[in-house]
């Protein structure tokens, strides 16, 4: 699949934003009102900004951004629609949470429930994002049990990786934040390792033979058009295996660096958590790029690919 930058930006940025937002919600649940108005507002702002940038980037990726509102209508069947609805519902919840949590509105009894609601809605939204991909039977690498967990855990990990430096800025750094980040990053490591292992070893269930019904001896002879078309541009992207391996190693390296930064932040200086954030986000971007680039759409079976 074509690793379009808008989609990569959207999923990583909004993933991190929702991760952060969910954590803030849980912070509220745990600690009640925020200890600093500035911390609360800045942290919330960053979370929502990341989400919004992501959503806008995906909206402008549309052929008709002005019609984007229509995307809320098909929640009964469409994960994309559900994601949209969830995203939209999350905003007021998060804002309400922000008002009470930051103390701008003094209604402490709501912090808990709204914190939960914010965390859950964030999770739901990222879940829907993951489902958009995992529900596509046409792309075996996405139609995979780990797609949704990776989306969720990556959101959490990048959220946690952001939470620590933001907290540091406001002198609110706590070792628990590092524990959370490290746990999430380790989970990502494990899931991604499992995912990659799995897709590398998954049997290729689809074949040109099934695509064309012409039997196992079929191969491409003439292309239907000598220049690429939309289908090939969008779905014909293929990353070289060597290149992908390099990038996978880079993702692991960045995740490991993030963990090291996290540990060092806890041990040496909280300011090192900035390193954690940068490394985790970079890992997310590259992982997401690979998520697209390594995904092979079965339509390629009509265009010369033997198995998918």
């Amino acid at each position, binding site marked *: 699949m074509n690793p379009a930058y808008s989609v990569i930006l959207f999923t990583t940025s909004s993933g991190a934003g929702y991760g952060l937002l969910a954590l803030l919600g849980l912070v509220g649940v745990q600690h009640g009102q925020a200890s600093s108005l500035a911390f609360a507002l800045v942290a919330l702002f960053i979370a929502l900004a990341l989400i919004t940038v992501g959503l806008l980037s995906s909206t402008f990726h*549309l052929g008709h951004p002005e*019609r984007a509102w*229509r995307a809320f209508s*098909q929640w009964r069947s469409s994960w994309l629609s559900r994601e949209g609805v969830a995203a939209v519902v999350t905003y007021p919840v998060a804002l309400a949470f922000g008002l009470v949590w930051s103390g701008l509105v003094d209604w402490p009894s709501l912090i808990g429930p709204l914190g939960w609601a914010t965390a859950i809605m964030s999770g739901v939204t990222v879940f829907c994002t993951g489902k*958009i991909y995992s529900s596509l039977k046409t792309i075996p690498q996405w139609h995979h049990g780990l797609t949704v967990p990776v989306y969720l855990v990556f959101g959490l990990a990048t959220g946690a990786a952001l939470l620590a430096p933001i907290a540091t800025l406001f002198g609110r750094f706590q070792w628990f934040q590092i524990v959370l980040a490290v746990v999430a990053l380790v989970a990502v490591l494990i899931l991604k390792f499992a995912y990659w292992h799995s897709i590398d070893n998954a049997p290729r269930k*689809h074949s040109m033979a099934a695509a064309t*019904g012409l039997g196992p*001896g079929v191969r491409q002879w003439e292309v*239907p058009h000598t220049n690429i078309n*939309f289908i090939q541009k969008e779905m014909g992207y293929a990353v070289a295996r060597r290149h992908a391996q390099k990038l996978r190693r880079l993702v692991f390296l960045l995740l490991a660096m993030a963990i090291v930064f996290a540990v060092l932040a806890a041990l040496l200086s909280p300011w090192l958590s900035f390193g954690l954030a940068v490394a985790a986000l970079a890992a997310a971007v590259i992982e997401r790029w690979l998520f697209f680039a390594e995904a092979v759409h079965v339509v390629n079976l009509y265009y010369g690919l033997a198995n998918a």
Partner: protein
Amino acid sequence: MTSLPATTGKKLGLVIDLDICVGCQACATSCKEWNGQGVSAPLSDDNARGPQPMGTWLNRIHGYEVQEEGRDDSRIVHFPRSCLHCETPACVTVCPTGASYKRAEDGIVLVNPETCIGCKLCSWACPYGAREYDYASGVMKKCTLCVDRIYNENFVPEDRVPACVKACPTGARSFGDLGDPNSDVSTLVAERGGYDLFPEMGYKPTNKYLPPRPRRDKAIAGIEPLPAQDGSALDRLFAWADKLMTSSRATASVNPADVSDRLEG
């Protein structure tokens, strides 16, 4: 209308005979031509005179070479590919806007160009590559089964068929109701073993493909080979010619007209 109708009144679709298709592209260009000005308009062309011309087409003709089992030679199969108007296609259900829908009355899968936001998700959900995004108009395009022809009373009844079907010079494309077991298309599918593409996807395509027939390049029962014989073939031919002179088919009658003038000059 993103939810799929529970059943459709008809299952209109195409049957494509791979035994006859010569890959002439008539169906592809006729489709582009009709739909470039009908309800699907525009089907734009990008970089039309340039290095990478890329246009929106609803029907594309591939060529495959097949090594058939039990034979040492291959076979070239020309393979047209367009929307199969699946019964349970995810291209419809993934659509967030309802722009993509399957019609309840005839099963045709369409995109509403007024409400499509151009998110392209449906094209990801189609295993058949049948949806092409039109960059100029920012909406998804796909085969409409020429819904603006098949019911169009501006045409005489025999022209109320898809543009590709009307165009196809070999007659490799048939159009009809595959939900009606007695229709011509259903009969054809039954007789020729019409099959589904990507059955494992579970999309239940309406369109069917008829497989290439087996070759007929081995000895046919009942036809004696003409053997090499001993002796002079010329002598035998002479003997045969002698017989011929005496046994020639008698003419029925003699036309009394004088015909000698026909032989002069």
